[in-house]
């Protein structure tokens, strides 16, 4: 059976070049960068080379890059660390309603510590209005965090415009670029942000590693206390193979980005256009144009996402869904709800995230196998039966 992985937002495979770069650090070159001997020297050298690679990807200075253990850690570090470092100035934090859970739940923890949150709405395409950011700012606002692009609906946010506003008001601005760094151009100077999160496993690098870029001069409290690794800002023995892999993935992403984007955009549009032409009652979620090149997300009416996933899986196709049943917490995606999708429609969520190895044949295979699956589930669905009866009755 054909195997088609279209769930790259969940995680990406390692590129062979990335794996090759990592292998020596799973072998002979196993030292600890804190050590003062040849083994330590080699490890230190590898970490600093990777730091330069990651810095180049986002147009930053290498000293401003802090390696972390994941995108989640980067976001926890940013939200908690930036808020705590400035709590004498104020305790108000601004987020969008479509932040990743690692930002949102970190902010919920801040609430327990006496901070106040403002959650900004998004329009039906998932776009934050910069005017809303301006209106939300108060004297005691110490942090604004807006996601660069949300992996579930793919919409890219107007970060530059928001940064202009936060800079005028002298408020620290963090963006979660986990879904964008390594995928679309991310340049911290162009974006104008102060702090930015990224993670390896979103662009063909390893799991277990992320980075936080903190503009020089911006104060942040450590999340992980202990030794003085990473300039005293992130304690713990460095995960050398993963850091090296992240560096290599960053280098490759930078050098091949334009070609990757073109490839992904073509496939994505084939799917975005193809699916609604073969299946009735399908809604595209997210922005029609201004979206991640690999993201094709839909809600299919009258049926539920997990059962679609399972039937697609039985045909070799791997995808995601934002339905309540597919989340471990059994809640429909807060992102879909924020863009105004009803809880009922959100149940039919299905998310294709394409990768650089995806092919037109993969897309055509999906366009071939999904319609009968939707049909089969609709034949089983009391909601569909009701809809049919009503629309017949209406005639």
């Amino acid at each position: 059976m054909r195997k088609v992985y279209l769930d790259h937002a969940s995680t990406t495979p390692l590129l062979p070049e990335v794996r090759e770069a990592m292998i020596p650090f799973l072998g002979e070159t196993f030292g600890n960068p804190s050590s003062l001997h040849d083994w330590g020297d080699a490890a230190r050298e590898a970490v600093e080379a990777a730091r330069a690679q990651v810095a180049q990807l986002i147009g930053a200075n290498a000293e401003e890059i802090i390696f972390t253990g994941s995108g989640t850690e980067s976001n926890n570090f940013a939200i908690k660390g930036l808020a705590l470092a400035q709590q004498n100035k104020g305790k108000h934090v601004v987020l969008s309603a479509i932040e990743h859970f690692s930002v949102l739940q970190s902010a919920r923890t801040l609430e327990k510590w006496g901070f106040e949150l403002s959650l900004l709405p998004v329009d039906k395409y998932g776009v934050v209005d910069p005017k809303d950011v301006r209106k939300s700012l108060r004297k005691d606002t110490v942090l604004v965090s807006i996601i660069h692009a949300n992996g579930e609906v793919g919409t890219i946010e107007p970060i530059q415009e928001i940064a202009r506003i936060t800079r005028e008001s002298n408020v620290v601005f963090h963006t979660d670029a986990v879904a964008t760094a390594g995928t679309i151009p991310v340049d911290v100077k162009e974006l104008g942000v102060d702090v930015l999160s990224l993670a390896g496993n979103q662009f063909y690098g390893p799991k277990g590693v992320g980075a936080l870029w903190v503009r020089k001069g911006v104060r942040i409290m450590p999340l992980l206390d202990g030794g003085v690794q990473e300039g005293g800002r992130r304690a713990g023995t460095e995960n050398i193979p993963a850091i090296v892999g992240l560096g290599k993935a960053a280098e490759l992403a930078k050098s091949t980005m334009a070609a990757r984007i073109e490839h992904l955009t073509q496939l994505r549009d084939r799917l975005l256009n193809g699916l609604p032409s073969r299946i009735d009652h399908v809604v595209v979620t997210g922005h029609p144009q201004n979206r991640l090149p690999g993201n094709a997300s839909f809600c299919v009416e009258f049926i539920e996402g997990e059962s679609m996933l399972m039937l697609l899986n039985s045909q070799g196709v791997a995808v995601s869904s934002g339905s309540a049943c597919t989340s471990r917490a059994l809640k429909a995606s807060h992102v879909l709800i924020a863009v105004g999708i009803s809880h009922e429609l959100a149940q039919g969520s299905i998310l294709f995230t394409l990768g650089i190895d995806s092919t037109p044949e993969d897309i055509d295979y999906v366009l071939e196998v999904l319609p009968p699956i939707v049909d089969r589930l609709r034949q089983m669905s009391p909601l569909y039966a009701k809809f049919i009866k009503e629309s017949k009755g209406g005639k």
Partner: protein
Amino acid sequence: MPVYSEKVMEHFMNPRNVGEIEDADGVGEEGNPVCGDMMTFYIKVKDNRLDDVKFKTFGCGAAIAVSSMVSEMAKGKTLEEAMKITPRSVANELEGLPKNKFHCSNLGAQALNKAIQDYLSKKKAKGGKE
């Protein structure tokens, strides 16, 4: 490690008794599309036995497998026997359900019960004539 047992998968992939019964003796609906799962059961009763059981289900893999399993367990049983089908016994027949799926997807027994109640109350309304 698959989320579901083989039995669940088998019922999900090949659900028994899907459909509606046009002239059903009883209909029972349970769940809510907003929460994720909704099931409608249709029964035909003959000599106090479930002569036919059919269902339609909107929901996750567990919900579909549960519906299928309940329909199979119920068919041919007396009303009293069928009313003894519980979420627990359905889950057991399915060789287990994921913990977080137990409550929200395991509505089949309730839906069936509602269908039986519907039949009984209709029968009562008709004054026991048949």
